[in-house]
């Protein structure tokens, strides 16, 4: 063996001695590092998807001998010790399917989350403001007692709850993973050194060389850019506004109403809280962010009850600088008219109506741009993309993270098979199975979500009538609803 080989071998041995079992956070400064640290898998991105991947790698016996690193700009160790606020829920939330929840339970992640803050949801009411379509998807009713027992179709969870649970499960596992927290990726170089593996340079001057570089770094993925993977997609020209709502009553049903400008959704949380997700065009977003909490609460209630024309009227008033109190008076009057109308009733009498919002949790209004983004491929030489870096879709169907979690499970199983066959994980030969498994599935889901958005984006004409017909038709068709619900749980 020549001297370079001997050097490489002795470095490998000394590095593995340095790391004992348990968490190996970087506690020493990597002073004057000429040679990068060699890793089998470097996961760039410690959000929900990145942590889910790290946690799955921890749990896999087959993959237990791989050297794994996770890189993220946030202070992960602090997030792992998150104490939930006693009197509110966070506005950034996720929706998890039953099969993903079961996956987390099997992996020992669920027990690390605050499960009393998770809302199981069995029922969704979808309605159309322009047409008259209404769809009541009630799992308990449609499926009867047979399929569900203690499970539900979907689970609403605060993002931080899930991420902190994942981090706790990683930190408490016996298998060491190097967590590079508070570190940004500064540079990525291809083909350096003897191995020709990609080398990542971090903001804390560490250098990591990766057999496989995983991009879990979101919609604007640096890893994807480095790999030269092309993307295509559209900006919807809209923003998502989220907020935490305090309802007048307890609620476990999800409500979504399609307005001409975009859907408004209310996702249930325990103890009478709810999460608002409202898709808006930029002007409306500015207005809604600027009004007081009381007016905002009233406008949310109005959006679930009144006609689109009436909503437009409020927006015009705000735009022309009317005082909040005037707008509130107008809205309150119209709501009274609405309540007085026969057949509308209040939430108690008509269960298809979203429960009234009593107040907005202060400072909980946040917004982000909405877009559709698809990639040409989920893989490149020594690169794999999971989660939003590989696919971004409209949140209206709540599927973004669920697709990301499916990516993680698929990638881990592909890696396990490769390790058992002694293959090099980063080669296209290994990674192409992952791409084959996930590319079409993600594309299909994105397509469905996008089509939904376009169908419900129509303002007039036959499309409106057709979709109302379809919704009401589906609503009356019990067998079809059963199939839809079973599909959602899978």
């Amino acid at each position: 063996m020549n001297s370079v080989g001997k050097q490489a071998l002795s470095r490998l041995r000394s590095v593995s001695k340095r790391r004992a079992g348990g968490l190996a956070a970087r506690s020493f400064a990597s002073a004057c590092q000429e040679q990068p640290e060699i890793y089998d898998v470097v996961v760039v991105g410690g959000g929900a998807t990145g942590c889910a991947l790290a946690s799955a790698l921890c749990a896999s016996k087959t993959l237990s001998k791989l050297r794994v690193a996770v890189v993220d700009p946030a202070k992960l160790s602090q997030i792992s010790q998150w104490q939930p606020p006693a009197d509110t829920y966070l506005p950034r939330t996720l929706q998890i399917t039953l099969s993903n929840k079961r996956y987390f339970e099997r992996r020992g992640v669920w027990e690390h989350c605050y499960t009393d803050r998770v809302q199981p949801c069995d029922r969704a009411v979808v309605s159309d403001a322009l047409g008259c379509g209404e769809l009541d998807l009630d799992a308990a009713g449609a499926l009867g007692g047979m399929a569900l027992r203690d499970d539900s179709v979907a689970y609403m969870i605060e993002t931080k709850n899930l991420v902190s649970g994942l981090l706790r499960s990683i930190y408490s596992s016996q298998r060491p993973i190097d967590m590079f927290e508070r570190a940004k990726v500064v540079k990525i170089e291809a083909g350096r050194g003897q191995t020709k593996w990609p080398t990542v340079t971090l903001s804390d001057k560490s250098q990591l060389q990766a057999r496989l570089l995983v991009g879990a770094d979101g919609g604007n993925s640096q890893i994807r850019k480095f790999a030269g993977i092309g993307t295509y997609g559209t900006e919807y020209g809209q923003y998502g506004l989220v907020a935490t709502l305090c309802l007048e009553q307890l609620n476990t049903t999800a409500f979504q109403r399609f307005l001409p400008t975009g859907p408004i959704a209310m996702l249930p949380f325990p103890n009478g809280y709810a999460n608002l997700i409202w898709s808006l065009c930029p002007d409306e977003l500015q207005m809604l962010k600027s009004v007081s909490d009381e007016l905002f609460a009233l406008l949310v209630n109005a959006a679930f009850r009144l006609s689109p024309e009436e909503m437009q009227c409020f927006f015009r008033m705000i735009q022309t600088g009317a005082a909040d109190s005037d707008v509130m008076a107008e809205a309150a009057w119209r709501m009274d008219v609405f309540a007085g109308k026969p057949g509308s009733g209040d939430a108690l009498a008509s269960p298809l109506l979203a429960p009234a919002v009593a107040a907005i949790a202060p400072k909980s209004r946040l917004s982000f741009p909405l877009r559709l983004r698809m990639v040409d491929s989920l893989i490149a030489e020594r690169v794999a993309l999971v989660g939003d870096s590989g696919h971004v879709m409209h949140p209206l169907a709540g599927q973004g993270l669920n697709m990301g979690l499916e990516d993680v499970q698929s990638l881990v199983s592909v890696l396990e098979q490769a390790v058992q066959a002694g293959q090099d994980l980063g080669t296209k030969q290994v990674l192409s199975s992952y791409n084959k498994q996930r590319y079409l599935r993600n594309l299909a889901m994105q397509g469905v979500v996008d089509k939904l958005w376009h169908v419900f984006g129509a303002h007039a004409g036959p499309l409106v009538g057709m979709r109302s017909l379809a919704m009401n038709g589906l609503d009356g068709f019990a067998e079809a609803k059963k199939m839809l619900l079973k599909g959602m749980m899978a």
Partner: protein
Amino acid sequence: MQYISRRLQELYSREWADRQLSVVDIGCGGGLATESLARMGMRTLGIDAGLENIQVAKLHSEQDPSVYGNIEYRQMTAEQAVQAKMKFNCVVSLEVIEHVRDPVPFVKSLVDLLEDNGVLFISTMNRTVVSLVVDILVPEYLLGSVPKGTHQFNKFLEPEELANMVRAANAEMVDVQGLVLEPISNSCHLVPRDFGLLRNVGVQANYIICARKKK
């Protein structure tokens, strides 16, 4: 490859877990399979009669740190290795025996390289109409992906013939599995030897045998 790792795990479970096994890849060529063996955690020696092959394999092995520490390449034949009194826990010879002038002493030298209770893997082609088409006609004449004359049909061995050679060399057969090669994805799948009452269906083209040296 997964087949090899599975069988070894069954037959050598403790040593496999401790990564104590040694393996020699006879006729390793460019080292593709040899590197996989090294990555599985075995102390691997790759031998080949061709010097160029050894040089190429050595160069490639330097690129992967999980291979580099575990692997060695030498230009030699199986007979020379026997003469040097080398012994291994496992001997692997993939797609080699159909090129050898005389397979009977070749099999004997493979078994001689094993420690007691060592495991032998040999993969090769069956001598049937199917293998004539799949392993000679299509790649050499139709697709041209393999040079003409690479394989000679009369050198192909039926599984029973190979098994007899193995038994004659004082080893017992563990099992025979069929191999289906997929040229597009460049991967191969294991298929069982028999499909119910249809005997020898899976091994019509390529197959791999696993044998164990008697004490």
